[in-house]
């Protein structure tokens, strides 16, 4: 079916006339791409700043412009005072210690980024108020042998009454394997997945249940494996951005409508988000 539709599309292109489009579009320009996720549960505040490139027009050939920007001024404030995040050349990101500007639940923070060539971007984020706990995490194993395993994950999180809460579940599946013959050194592999759900503000005290199947296969013997599960209670912007990225955002397919990528950065792309986090590590073997 897919090939047939491609054949049809090819037929149209081959038989039809093509010319440069003459439609009104915004000026093609590169913008700042800023990502910064703050939480009271971490000791470091970090941000990454990059450039975007126009999809077409003169700037579209400069793909290298998308690399990290190291000379930006990145300032984070809480409305009364602000700090500057300094570029960490080794890690290629801007960072500051959370001790310089404590990230507190319920508080609004403001991020401003500017570059020497005059580009400016800004955003704000509200840190989720409620402290929450993961009520339970279950990992029923469906099948396992020496080279593969398959399990489900069930997570129950208490709802926060009278408000819509946004949750993201982050699974990091780490597997260490070793070649059977000749016996090699163990190698590690990470398999990360996202999943999202939001609560219904009309339902008080409801609980959320999530299930997912996680599978790992290898031609090598699995020596150890574990799963890190983080449940994030997110700000709405962080939730929408993460969800759109994890659902394949920004990738276009001629036979479907594109998944739009959310941004709350004014004059730019990316996300300034806030979250509370709870983590559990489950040793599989």
């Amino acid at each position, binding site marked *: 079916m897919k090939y047939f539709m491609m054949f049809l599309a090819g037929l*149209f292109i081959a038989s039809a006339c093509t010319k440069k489009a003459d439609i009104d579009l915004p000026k*093609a320009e590169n913008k700042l791409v800023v990502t910064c996720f703050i939480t009271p549960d971490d000791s470091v505040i970090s941000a990454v700043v990059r450039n975007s490139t126009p*999809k077409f027009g003169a700037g579209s050939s400069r793909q290298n412009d998308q690399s990290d920007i190291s000379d930006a001024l990145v300032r984070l404030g809480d409305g009364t005072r602000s700090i500057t995040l300094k570029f960490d050349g080794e890690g290629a990101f801007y960072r500051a210690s959370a001790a310089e500007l404590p990230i507190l639940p319920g508080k609004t923070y403001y991020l401003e980024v500017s570059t020497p060539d005059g580009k400016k971007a800004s955003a704000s984020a509200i840190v989720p108020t409620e402290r929450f706990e993961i009520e339970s995490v279950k990992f029923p194993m469906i099948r396992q042998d020496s080279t593969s395993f398959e399990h489900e994950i069930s997570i129950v999180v208490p709802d926060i009454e009278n408000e819509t809460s946004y949750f993201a579940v982050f699974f990091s599946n780490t597997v260490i394997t070793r070649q059977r013959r000749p016996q090699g050194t163990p190698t590690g592999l990470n398999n990360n997945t996202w999943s999202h759900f939001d609560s219904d503000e009309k339902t008080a005290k409801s609980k959320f249940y999530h299930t997912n199947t996680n599978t790992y296969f290898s031609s090598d013997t699995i020596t150890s494996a574990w799963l890190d599960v983080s449940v994030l209670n997110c700000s709405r912007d962080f939730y929408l951005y993460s969800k759109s990225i994890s659902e394949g955002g920004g990738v276009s397919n001629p036979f479907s409508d594109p998944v739009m990528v959310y941004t709350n950065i004014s004059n730019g792309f990316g996300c300034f988000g806030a979250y509370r986090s709870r983590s559990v590590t489950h040793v599989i073997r």
Partner: protein
Amino acid sequence: MQKNLFMAFVLFSQCILSQERFTVSGYITEKGSRENLPGVTIHQPGTGHATTSNAYGFYSITLPRQDSLKLLFSFMGFASELKVMKLDRNIALNIGLKAVNNLEEVEVTAKRTESISEDVQMSRIDIPIEKVKDIPALLGEKDVLKVLQLMPGVQKGSEGSSGFYVRGGGPDQNLIILDDATVYNAFHLFGFFSLFNGDALKSVELTKGGFPARYGGRLSSVLDMQMKDGNKEKIHGEAGIGIISSRLTLEGPIIKDKCSFLVSGRRTYIDALIYPWMPDNRKGGYYFYDMNAKVNYVFSDKDRLFLSGYFGKDRFFANLKNEASTSKFGLNWGNATATARWNHLFSNKLFANTSLIFTDYKMGIMNEYKDDQSTFSLLYTSGIRDYSFKTSFDYMPNPSHYIKFGLQSIYHQFRPGASVLKSSFLESDFKSASLFEAFENALFVEDDWKITPKWRLNAGVRLTNFIIKKENYINPEPRLSVRYLIMDDLSVKASFATMNQYMHLLSNTGIGLPTDLWVPATAKAPFMRSQQVALGLSKDFVKKGFDIAVEGYYKEMNNVLGYKEGASFLTIGDNSEAVSWENNVTSGQGWSYGGEVLLRKNTGKFTGWIGYTLSWTELQFDELNFGKKFFARYDRRHDISVVGVYKINQNITLSATWVYGTGNAITLPLNSYVANTYALPYTFSNPTALNQAAVYQVQDFGPQRNAYRMSPYHRMDLGVQFHKKKKYYTRTFELGFYNVYNRQNPFFYYIDTKNGVQELMQVSLFPIIPSVSWSWKF
């Protein structure tokens, strides 16, 4: 005082009693062919008493006793007939009206048909079939649906497509009926041509709003088409040869004045012409054919039977061969409909039509591969089949009321996907199939009530019911149309209609591809509902042959279905889990509002119309565009159509159309960047940890979905017809030019890299295309 009152009462009662009433009723047909004529006005000059013939040509008018009753029978394109009679008993009167040529100057002695200012119905378009034949068309293939696209409030989807959008509703929201049978996929050749062969059609009527209660099942429009019954007096035929297809229609009596038939067929032949020239190892082609057939039998003036059917198929195929392997690919789709209708007169005031209806749409994809080591074959089919029963009654108690009531029951079989996979690698054949069964029922009643000469209304209600699995929905649909006659030829109209739709069409393209899937409303994909109000002004310029209608409308649509971002019919088609469509769709709301103007010239040597639409269509889905409102792809701010047909003399007809439309709304990527998202830090206490990681290159599609516009669409078509009357037939030669000024209209856009720079490129489908065709009428 009391005595006076008593006397007045007695006199009044005697007056009422002495006004005995009698009914004149019968069938109205075309002289020569005896084809039933719907929509003929029967009018008593000098009074407000009037009625119209129904879809089967039957009329009934009940009036007080009178010595000399004059009744004028008039219909557009036919010479009026004035009958004078003494009305002292019920009279059965069948009338034959003579068709007149547009060139003949017919004296306008009275209103020749029910004018638009008189009619209570608004938002309705009647397309005279003869007009369809006059208007130039792509490759000379005359198409009813493409003529509809030239009307205000009706928009085409994309270049060359027959699919249409009515007042912001999607193609799935149009109910297309041929002789009472629903047609689910009305397109040949991937949407470029419609199924409907103009030679076999008698009437085409599109309702965009103010729906009478007898119609239901779709949100946005009803396209009701009637096939010709077949000439009852003599054998008659039409034949045509064009670039794409040839066609032949034959009609005539089987038993004179009792029983007649009509058979009409079309077939394309490009496949037959090119097949011999293709190399043996690469053969392929495409064709479509369709056939309409109808038989009717008049048992008596009280009972008539009609049997009609449509059958059509499109087939695309490719066979590839090399030394090691052979492979075959095929795609075919087709509709079949069959209708048996029985007209019965219970009395001269009560007419009944009962129909048994069958309709079936089927699409199949076949793929076979064979080499020395392996074999593989896949057959995928989908479709929908209906069995329906419908009975409706027309009750005409007096000239002030025309009551219609009835019921309809449809048994739907939805087959969204069935696959059979055979492979030498499989131990056994893989088979999957899905079937959803549902019942859709409706009861309706409506009354066209002439309250006073100035006030007239059509009020009704339709009670709908849909049963699927354990779900049972019952919804009343109130309908109301009101007309107030400001002057004899000027009226103001208003209407309100609620519509429910219990099925969805899954389509990414909206252009009528055969892969579009019909699915039932379910709990996850709930039924759709619309509410529409319209207000309009209608004015006739009787002596000049003009009329003008101006309308404004506002429509709300609930539970409109859309694909989730990133989901497509390819995902569904490739997935044998047939129910997966429910996980790929999402429900939202729609709003459509705007204004329409239609100025028509209906008589004389020069006829045509100018249509203008100003409209907005917005959608909102919780799961799309981050929950924000956005313009629908087919939102079109301005849409203009100009159509002119000029009959120079009996032998030459010139025609031209010009259309303009604001470009479709599209989503385009404007920027690309490397996106970071949350990643588990190595440890939360590590002061150098970064809680994010680069994911991949993403594209930014602008501030919202459908934020940009394609280039405006405009095009002019020209045609000239040369008619020659021979002894036994009339021959017409037509020369046509599609897109005469070679406008490169956008079909779609893509990004191409030239000299290291990416450019947005536009693909246009049809440049100037000349066409020739011949037709014969005998």
